[in-house]
């Protein structure tokens, strides 16, 4: 009986030892993978920094102004061109439009009569 238990203990020890080394090996692999990924992240971050710097350079107001002056036909905004939303007049109602049209037509007709 005891021999059986002892044999089992020895077997268990061997199994545990194998498992231990297996875990150690796997951990080593994972750690190497992590280090590799961290290196890649560092490189990507560095690239991002360079790209951000280049983006800022391309967005430099001086450069944009020169490009705008060269390629666009826009002029600086004048203060008279900026208006408040409330400054836009109300849309005319239908009756008001009809009235306006009628008055315009009658004025045209009167002028046409004068030319006869």
């Amino acid at each position, binding site marked *: 009986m005891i021999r059986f238990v002892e044999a089992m203990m020895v077997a268990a020890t061997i199994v545990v030892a194998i498992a231990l080394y297996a875990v150690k090996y796997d951990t080593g692999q994972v750690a190497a993978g992590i280090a590799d990924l*961290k290196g890649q992240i*560092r490189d990507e971050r*560095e690239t991002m*920094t*360079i790209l*951000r*710097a280049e983006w*800022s*350079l391309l*967005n*430099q*107001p*001086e450069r944009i*102004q020169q490009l705008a002056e060269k390629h666009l036909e826009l002029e*600086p*905004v*004048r*203060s*008279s061109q*900026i208006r*408040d939303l409330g400054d836009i007049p109300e849309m005319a109602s239908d009756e008001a439009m009809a009235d306006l049209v009628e008055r315009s037509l009658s004025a045209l007709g009167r002028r046409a009569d004068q030319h006869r």
Partner: protein
Amino acid sequence: MSPVQRSRPHSTDACPEAGTGAAFDRASRRRLRIVAWAFVAGFAVIAARLVDLALLASPGAEAKAAAHGTSLARPDIVDRNGSILATDIKVASMYGDPRRIVDLGDTIDQLLLAMPQLERPFLLERLSRERDFVWLKRGVTPADRARIHNLGLPGIGFVDERRRVYPAGRALAHVVGHVNVDNQGQAGIEKYLDGRGGEGGFASPVAAGPSEVALAVDLRVSHAVRDELVKAMDTFSAKAAAAVVLDVATGEVVGLSSLPDYDPHDPRQSLAPDRINRISKGVFELGSTFKAFTVAMALDEGVAGLETSYDARTPIRVGRYSIGDYHAKSRYLTVSEIFVYSSNIGAAKMALDTGVEAHQAFLRRIGMLERVRTELPETSDPLVPDPWRPISTMTIAFGHGLGVTPLHAASAAAALVNGGKLIAPTFLRRSRGEAELYARQVLSADTSAKMRYLMRLNVQKGTARKAAVPGYRVGGKTGTAEKAGPHGYDRSKLLNTFIAAFPIDAPRYIVLVLLDEPQGTRETHGFATSGWNAAPTVADIIGRIAPMLGIAPDGRVDEFDAGFLLAAIH
């Protein structure tokens, strides 16, 4: 039955060392049990620690692992909207180890083939030194690095360094400053950051400070200001030009430009004395813009009211000096007229009425007698007359005899229009709440209201007419100062300034423009006074930056008439 028991003799007397039967059995079992439990305990501890590490991972361990990574260098500098003004990028720098070089001539030949911009004498000198490390070229392009690396030359290697780049270019060169080749701040905010005891240069350890420093300046506003200054310098053939835009409620410097300026990537240019930051470091006699402070003083001290009259019929004679008016009216002038017609005689008399001591105290109160305290290291002490005689009081009243920086004037002007609070100017973000802590009440709110009226009146009817911008309600004061030469004041060399506040009904910003030795043009009919060059420059600037600063134009004319503002005071 154990083997031990069988071989053991029955009698304990025959072999005493072997021990007795049952007692020996118990003793050895006990020892075995102790050893066994010791092993169990040992493995239990290991198992427990495994569980601890795997499941309840402590952050301390991870932080320690991360700290071994790359060391932080300088923080990014951004403007108030997040635009990058300064940032680090990694560059390779080439070094040589002379002791490891096998064939010096061949090595140099191959290096020159790969990078023709290197020079043979330089390489020869460097690589012949008795050192184990010499810099060959700092800042090598990735292409060059790859090429030389592939040559496989012994004794030649690369180190990654951090190089500072300034995407904004010249636009905010004086504010942001620059660094030296070792990434140490030499001027401007870069130098201020180093002095703050924070992030350092190339070899600094992990930084504990922020990764980004937000400035109060607005890149778009600063560029607009610079662009208009370049045009003005060209139009009026000025030797130099400078401008600053200040938030009157917080003291934040929203825009700053001083020409000529320099490229922060080539900091050797900044050493030329002509390229200083004229706004914070240049000391000038500002001339007539100072009358605004004189008038404010007389009103605040109760010495005069807006309608108080002064005799300006004849120039004041003091010894061999004579104080007269440009375009003299030669009559009695009210305080309002003194401001609007920029009368030297009137200003001098107002200062004398206030008294020498009170005048000095007032100037000290608005910060004119000491250095401006702000983040930029480039500041100057004012030039104060010593000894201070009554003639000094008279001349300082109209801006001669006391030399101050334009930043002094802009900061004090903000106090004139914001209700009387003097706030130290800052280049870092500051909220209105924080500004209250730095604010000092130097004038009454009533005086401030009167100054706003006078500045508006000046733009509607006085010398500042060309500063008007439809819709933006500009108020201001002109200043034309003759520059002092070896033989007295030179009438042909002018230093022109203009201080504007807008929108004058509830001022948000001060704009100060300075032009050094502007000339008359055909459009100005040959006149070179401030109203003809500095004032229209201010108008151009305000027209351009007001939308950026969120100020809507208001086309109503009557509500912003000076008379309306005056009625509001009484």
